[in-house]
């Protein structure tokens, strides 16, 4: 196994073109397990963890740009205001030790259907900024995943940043697991209201070959909120609307039976989580009047 340690981002991009089989490593929380535990033997490691330029974030024009080195700890400690769903999800990742190393970009690169960052990134309409010697392209996160642990990255490409719209309304995230810490999601769900555009976003984890949105559910909820004048006046939502949304979220799932849980349980849990997150998020609106974080 070779080891490459680029000094600059430009060097990293050039090295990935020269060594397309090189596997990027940053937090190592997935890759080191694969090497030590699953016997994966990459020909070459491309170490991105020393690139300071990847570790920062900045907000401009209502979007937070997370460098590829931004960790879960960074998000939950500093970005809870602008990225509430991602911060709640980050808080549920592993343990302090894992959160200090694991990165949002690494979660995308691993592309597990159970990745905790994915539902919030889907619900908020985030974009993955990918770079190679051929140039930069922005991939909407909804088109980033192509299968279990597969994504659209070409062999010469690296994730440079993740662009997440700053919240303009309440957001929620919920995850089911066997304990509070150190669990892979049995199923997870994120919900994001964008009040000015009257848009609802959703993301489902661990209930399909990739993380998915619940498009029918969001269309239904948007329509119900329009029809009842709820965007203007944040009254109590009718139980029928909440249930209708939850049913459509559950219907979007295509789960499997596996060691973490049976498919039927996942669908049931998803229905409950959709109902709860909608009530939590909506009550924040009712309290706040405009939008709450």
């Amino acid at each position, binding site marked *: *196994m*070779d*080891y490459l*340690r680029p000094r600059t981002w430009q060097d990293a991009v050039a090295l990935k073109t020269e060594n397309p089989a090189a596997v990027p*490593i940053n*937090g*190592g*929380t997935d890759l*080191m*397990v694969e*090497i*030590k*535990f699953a016997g994966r*033997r*990459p020909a*070459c*490691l491309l*170490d991105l*963890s*020393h690139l300071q330029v990847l570790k920062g974030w900045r907000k401009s024009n209502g979007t937070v740009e997370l460098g590829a080195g931004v960790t879960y*700890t960074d998000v939950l400690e500093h970005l809870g205001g602008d990225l509430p769903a991602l911060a709640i999800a980050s808080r549920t990742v*592993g*343990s*302090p*030790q*894992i959160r*200090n*190393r694991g990165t949002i970009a690494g979660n995308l690169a691993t592309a597990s259907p159970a990745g905790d960052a994915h539902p919030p990134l889907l619900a908020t309409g985030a974009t993955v900024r990918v770079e190679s010697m051929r140039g930069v392209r922005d991939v909407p996160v909804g088109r980033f995943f192509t299968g279990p642990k597969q994504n659209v990255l070409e062999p010469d490409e690296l994730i440079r940043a993740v662009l997440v719209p700053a919240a303009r309304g309440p957001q929620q995230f919920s995850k089911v697991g066997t304990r*509070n*810490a*150190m669990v892979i999601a049995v199923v997870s769900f994120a919900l994001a209201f964008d009040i000015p555009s009257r848009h609802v976003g959703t993301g489902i984890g661990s209930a399909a070959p990739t993380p998915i949105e619940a498009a029918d559910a969001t269309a239904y909820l948007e329509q119900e909120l329009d029809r009842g004048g709820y965007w203007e006046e944040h009254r109590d939502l009718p139980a029928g609307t909440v249930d209708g949304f939850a049913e459509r979220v559950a219907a979007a799932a295509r789960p499997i039976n596996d060691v973490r849980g049976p498919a039927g349980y996942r669908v049931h849990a998803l229905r409950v989580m959709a109902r709860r997150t909608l009530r939590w998020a909506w009550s924040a609106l009712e309290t706040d009047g405009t939008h709450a974080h």
Partner: protein
Amino acid sequence: MLIELIVNGRRRTAENVRAGESLLYVLREHLGLRGSKDACEQGECGSCSVYLNGDLVCACLVSAGQADGAEVVTVEGLSDGESLHPIQQAYVSEGAVQCGFCTPGLIVATHCLLDASSDPSDEEIREALAGNLCRCTGYEKIVSAVRLAATETAAG
């Protein structure tokens, strides 16, 4: 490859390190620091918890190359020579050690917690130690030890 790092304040080098090796392996097998324990090798148990450039991490998930040039503090770096650190003493006093395999990682994680929060609530203690598994005593005595250590540290 050759890596150079600062461990517990001393500059150390390790030769013939393979790229896929972990910082944990370097510490234990190249540098002879066997306080950090090698248990799960997948970041689940926290027995190899160390500080890497000031952050609490699992040494098993840091590749050796990533530790090149880094500053590492292990459990060996917390005690003052032969005299126990107050956190170590608290674990002894409260009977929070049985087989002892998880203890070094718990000591480092406790150190990290008390560094950030001198009087943590039970919830904060359990959250801070959520990545450290003990299979012997259960966690009551460990939580008591952290409380005692917090008191001792505040008094000292």
